């Protein structure tokens, strides 16, 4: 043993009489102190550890936010405005918000919500066409989507940062705890959107577009062509009038290949109103979130309107189906969040023939020749041509 160490031990022995040569007492004291510290400050240490973990996630979120903003800038500046202007305008636009209508007086809330969503879409289109003056319509639509993804990542980052800073400032356990518990889910969502950015920026089809794709394939099989497509029966939505086994089918979808979901709910309503009493059935096709463990691209069917809008569209569909006593059914393709906003997965694409088979079965079984049927493909049409 080195001389210094010896002196140290001797010193301790002198300080603590009764422990001569026996360190068990000292160890006991150390353990006691440790246990007291842990019971007094254990929670604080745990909070500190959680804060560190949130911080790690926050750093990752910030990276995604920065990279996505940069990607948006790179994409926008190809369309005619100088980079510094794009940077400035984007920064101004990133925290654009929409105030949900008041629900204390629920009468007409869907109308008001629809109005706000319309206004929001107008503002987006105005912004994009100002910032990308040289783009064509379908490019503008894809740019709108790019912008929205960037906004989502920015929002997620700002919200997590808010809770992190509040938790740090106040030391409030509940603040830290709730954000820490949600962190894995938040990160998964952020990553899904981050990966999706590439699809939107380049105009690749995404998993959510399977509905319009199925409808178009179905229409093509029965003679529908881009020329027979009837444009704009509601905002950015049109249909192929086709004949299937003696029935007339209106195969409805948003107009691609730009990225838009249009307003299919109101389109259905308009078609029903235009063909008063003649529509026998409404079939909706859409992507649906799969449960963990379910197969990607699994096809499943049920009753109701398969459409994931904030409310007005779905309401319009259900309302018109109820008023006119029309059967409404849904065929969905299961996928996870990452696949829904990311580039179309092969397994989802491979489900198309089965969905078409199910549509045929439904038409043959539940309608008779001479009936009119609405087949609505719901989803984002980015990268999916007419």
């Amino acid at each position, binding site marked *: 043993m080195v001389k210094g160490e010896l002196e140290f031990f001797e010193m301790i022995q002198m300080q603590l009489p009764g422990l001569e040569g026996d360190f068990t007492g000292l160890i006991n004291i150390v353990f006691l102190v440790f246990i007291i510290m842990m019971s007094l400050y254990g929670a604080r240490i745990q909070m500190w550890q959680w804060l560190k973990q949130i911080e790690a996630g926050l750093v990752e979120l910030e990276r995604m936010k920065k990279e996505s903003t940069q990607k948006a800038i790179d994409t926008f500046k190809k369309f005619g405005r100088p980079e510094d202007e794009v940077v400035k305008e984007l920064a101004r636009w990133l925290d654009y918000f929409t105030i949900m209508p008041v629900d204390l007086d629920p009468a007409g809330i869907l109308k008001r919500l629809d109005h706000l969503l319309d206004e929001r879409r107008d503002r987006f289109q105005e912004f994009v066409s100002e910032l990308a003056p040289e783009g064509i319509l379908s490019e503008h639509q894809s740019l709108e989507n790019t912008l929205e993804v960037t906004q989502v990542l920015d929002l997620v980052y700002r919200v997590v940062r808010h809770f992190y800073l509040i938790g740090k400032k106040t030391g409030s356990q509940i603040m830290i705890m709730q954000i820490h518990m949600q962190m894995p889910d938040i990160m998964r969502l952020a990553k899904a959107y981050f990966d999706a950015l590439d699809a939107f920026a380049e105009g690749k089809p995404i998993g959510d577009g399977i509905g319009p794709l199925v409808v178009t394939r179905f229409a093509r099989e029965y003679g529908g062509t881009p020329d027979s497509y009837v444009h704009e029966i509601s905002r950015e939505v049109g249909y192929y009038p086709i004949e299937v086994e003696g029935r007339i089918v209106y195969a409805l979808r948003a107009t691609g290949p730009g990225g838009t979901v249009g307003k299919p709910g109101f389109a259905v309503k308009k078609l029903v109103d235009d063909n008063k009493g003649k529509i026998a059935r409404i079939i909706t096709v859409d992507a649906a979130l799969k449960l963990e463990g379910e197969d990607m691209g699994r096809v499943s069917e049920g009753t109701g309107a398969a459409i994931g809008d904030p409310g007005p569209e779905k309401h319009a569909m259900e309302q018109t189906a109820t008023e006119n006593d029309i059967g409404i059914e849904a065929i969905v393709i299961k996928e996870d969040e990452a696949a829904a906003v990311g580039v179309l997965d092969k397994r989802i*694409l491979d489900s198309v023939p089965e969905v078409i088979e199910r549509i045929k079965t439904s038409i043959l079984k539940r309608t008779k020749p001479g009936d009119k049927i609405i087949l609505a493909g719901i989803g984002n049409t980015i990268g999916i041509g007419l």
Partner: protein
Amino acid sequence: MGLISKLLGIIFAASGIAILFFGSSDPVWSIAYYILGLILMSVGLTLVTSRGESKERKPPPPTVTEIRCDNPECTFKEIRDFQKADYILKPMEAQCPKCQSSMTIHGIYVVREEESE
């Protein structure tokens, strides 16, 4: 990477256990060995059970474009990398090398690996 850290972990844990068992008979040193053994063991076990979070991000799988001949009797199919302005159901300018019919983009997709966990 993962394998090496696991192996290292096992070595650490094993040496920790060995030190714990065959510590010194000297009372002062036995305490030091005891603590050293515990630390080694915990470090080793952490290494073994940690799920290599620092693994590098894999680049996303490439997006491919699948082009098919419009002639139903022809089976020609071409798969190439995605190019800008491709979209599903886009009619191609090139003709089918087999039968000279028109061709259409049949699909644009990625092949993701099945997540195995």
